[in-house]
């Protein structure tokens, strides 16, 4: 089987789920004839028709709201944000309506909200968001953020089949940059389970999304100095795999949390706090976070590169921890 790109994995997941289950449909801006701004839904209109691939007005509230209403009726909508940056426009209805259905009303509201996220593509401050932390303190929404083609497909299928609202964060930098051999069979990646991407014993890097590759590079570099790095690919942010984090820290006693969103109030803070409470005795050194500067992602390449985390900063943190 030919290698599948990250973006094709997403398209496949939608297509297969729509074929499997007629309750699944796609709704968003330009998802139909155009196939989505990144062509993620290319071909779906032809396969499934305009009833199930719905082009909407520019109305994120309506997209998320209508998806939620349909979900309550037993449908399984996938709501696309053209860029996840625009999810802010539908923020209210997502956190206050969609995410509250179970806790307040005992209603299943199985929507998936998905779209391109992340920086590194010179998209500027309005096309580079890493949105997870905006939702972390608003209970009721699951959040996943695949960093591999395998996970992109498996997590999207899991999200579509999940009975709760799920925010599915796809990293646009990875769309066409990574390729993998995927299984021919139908598979899912369970929400809430981390993947130990690399086993190691001296240091743990907890990360997800496009930062996996920064972690890989850093680990390769550290290996030259005989440092063995464990990389935990979190994949799910809500719920997250606390056990996997704590186990790894218990083994390596040193931890870096690496994410692309700004440092302050990023999801990494939560993971650090959990470790500082629950794995305190295992820690031989401070918990380090490597993240973007606390600014909107700037547009110009030199600024963007300076704002986003990179291998150099990870290596520096790693060396500080190892020398601690």
């Amino acid at each position: 089987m030919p290698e599948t790109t990250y973006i094709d994995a997403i398209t496949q997941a939608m297509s297969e789920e729509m074929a499997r289950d007629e309750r699944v449909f796609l709704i968003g801006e330009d998802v139909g004839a155009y196939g989505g701004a990144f062509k993620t839904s290319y071909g779906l209109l032809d396969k499934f028709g305009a009833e199930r691939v719905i082009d909407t007005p520019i109305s994120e509230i309506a997209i998320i709201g209508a998806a939620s209403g349909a979900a309550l009726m037993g449908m399984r909508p996938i709501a696309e944000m053209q860029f996840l940056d625009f999810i802010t426009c539908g923020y209210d209805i997502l956190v206050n309506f969609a995410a509250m259905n179970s806790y307040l009303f005992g209603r299943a509201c199985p929507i998936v909200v998905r779209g391109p996220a992340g920086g590194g593509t010179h998209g500027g401050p309005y096309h580079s968001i890493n949105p997870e932390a905006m939702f972390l303190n608003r209970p009721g929404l699951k959040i996943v953020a695949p960093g591999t083609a395998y996970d992109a497909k498996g997590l999207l299928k899991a999200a579509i089949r999940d009975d709760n609202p799920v925010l599915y964060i796809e990293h646009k930098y990875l769309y066409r940059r990574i390729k993998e051999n995927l299984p021919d069979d139908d598979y899912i990646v369970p929400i809430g389970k981390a993947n130990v991407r690399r086993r190691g014993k001296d240091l743990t890097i907890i990360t997800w999304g496009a930062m996996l590759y920064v972690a890989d590079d850093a680990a390769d570099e550290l290996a030259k100095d005989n440092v063995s790095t464990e990389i935990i690919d979190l994949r799910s942010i809500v719920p997250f795999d606390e056990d996997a984090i704590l186990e790894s820290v218990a083994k390596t006693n040193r931890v870096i949390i690496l994410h692309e969103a700004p440092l302050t109030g990023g999801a990494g803070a939560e993971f650090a706090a959990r470790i500082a409470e629950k794995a305190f005795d295992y820690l031989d050194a401070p918990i380090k976070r490597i993240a973007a500067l606390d600014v909107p992602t700037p547009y110009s390449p030199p600024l963007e590169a300076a704002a986003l985390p990179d291998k150099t900063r990870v290596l520096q943190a790693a060396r500080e921890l190892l020398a601690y």
Partner: protein
Amino acid sequence: MSELSNEQLLDIDYYLRLTRTLEERLVALFRQAKVIGGLYRSLGQEGESVAAAYALDYKQGDVVQPLIRNIGAILVAGAKPADIIKQYMAKGDGPTRGRELNIHFGHPARDGFIGQISMLGDMIPVMAGIALAGRMQKRKLVTLAFIGDGGSSTGAFWEGMNFASVQKLPMVVIVENNGYAYSTPTSKQTAARTLADKSYAFGCAGVTIDGNDVLGVYDTTKRAIENARSGGGVTLIEVMTFRMKGHAEHDNQAYVPKELIAEWAEKDAVVRFENLLVERGVATREQLDAIQQRVKKEVDDATDEADRSPMPDPAHAGKGLFIEDGYWG
């Protein structure tokens, strides 16, 4: 007199009385501090609320979405008075088990109604989605949403109406122009000539009618519903009515000119409807009194049931965030 049978007309009267009586009971419970949180009266608006909801066909799967003042509408849809009282009293065996308040409850696929959330306007896109799902499922259901003069200023309202209109969804929206949004008069809410004029922006049908004319509201809504059911798309119906009480029990509505209240008191929809029933020989005063007795008994029973209900178990506070945890069964 409309297409309604005498039986149906009396049924409507029953719901009008039930609404008013139930709300009066809630006021009493509020004064006894048994109702927790705010109490929002629909006094003066029961007519349109009941009449519009009565025009739906719940057996077809039609769904109504009330605002806080549309107790009448959900009673018509089948909500139980005891459930409403339990919600207000924050009881543990009410529909939301004490998690949400007043008439914020209901399931569109199960109950025929879905309570609003507090964020005004948000239910309009949601109701559009329910209508969309109905169409995808090849069901002939229609959704009926209420929105206030105030709520119709929200971006969510606009986006939902626009989407529903583009999609020609089977949806009817009642804009209750009751003069005020909290303390804000409609003139500060919009410069539009009428709220029905908003329909031009969506390219849907729009009309302004007397909200205290029960039969008029029924007929107009019914036509809009059947039009929607047969593929004719969205209708926006502005009903002109008046909020006879303050925004909530704590609000003495000092900002409302006294004459305006007096003027609208004359136009009470329930009185007017019942006069009509008597005039046209549909019912005698005695029959109407009998309805009131029945209603009172039901509300008494419901109050007793709610009173006996337990408060929620604090140990449950953390449960049910995700649906699969089984808390809701």
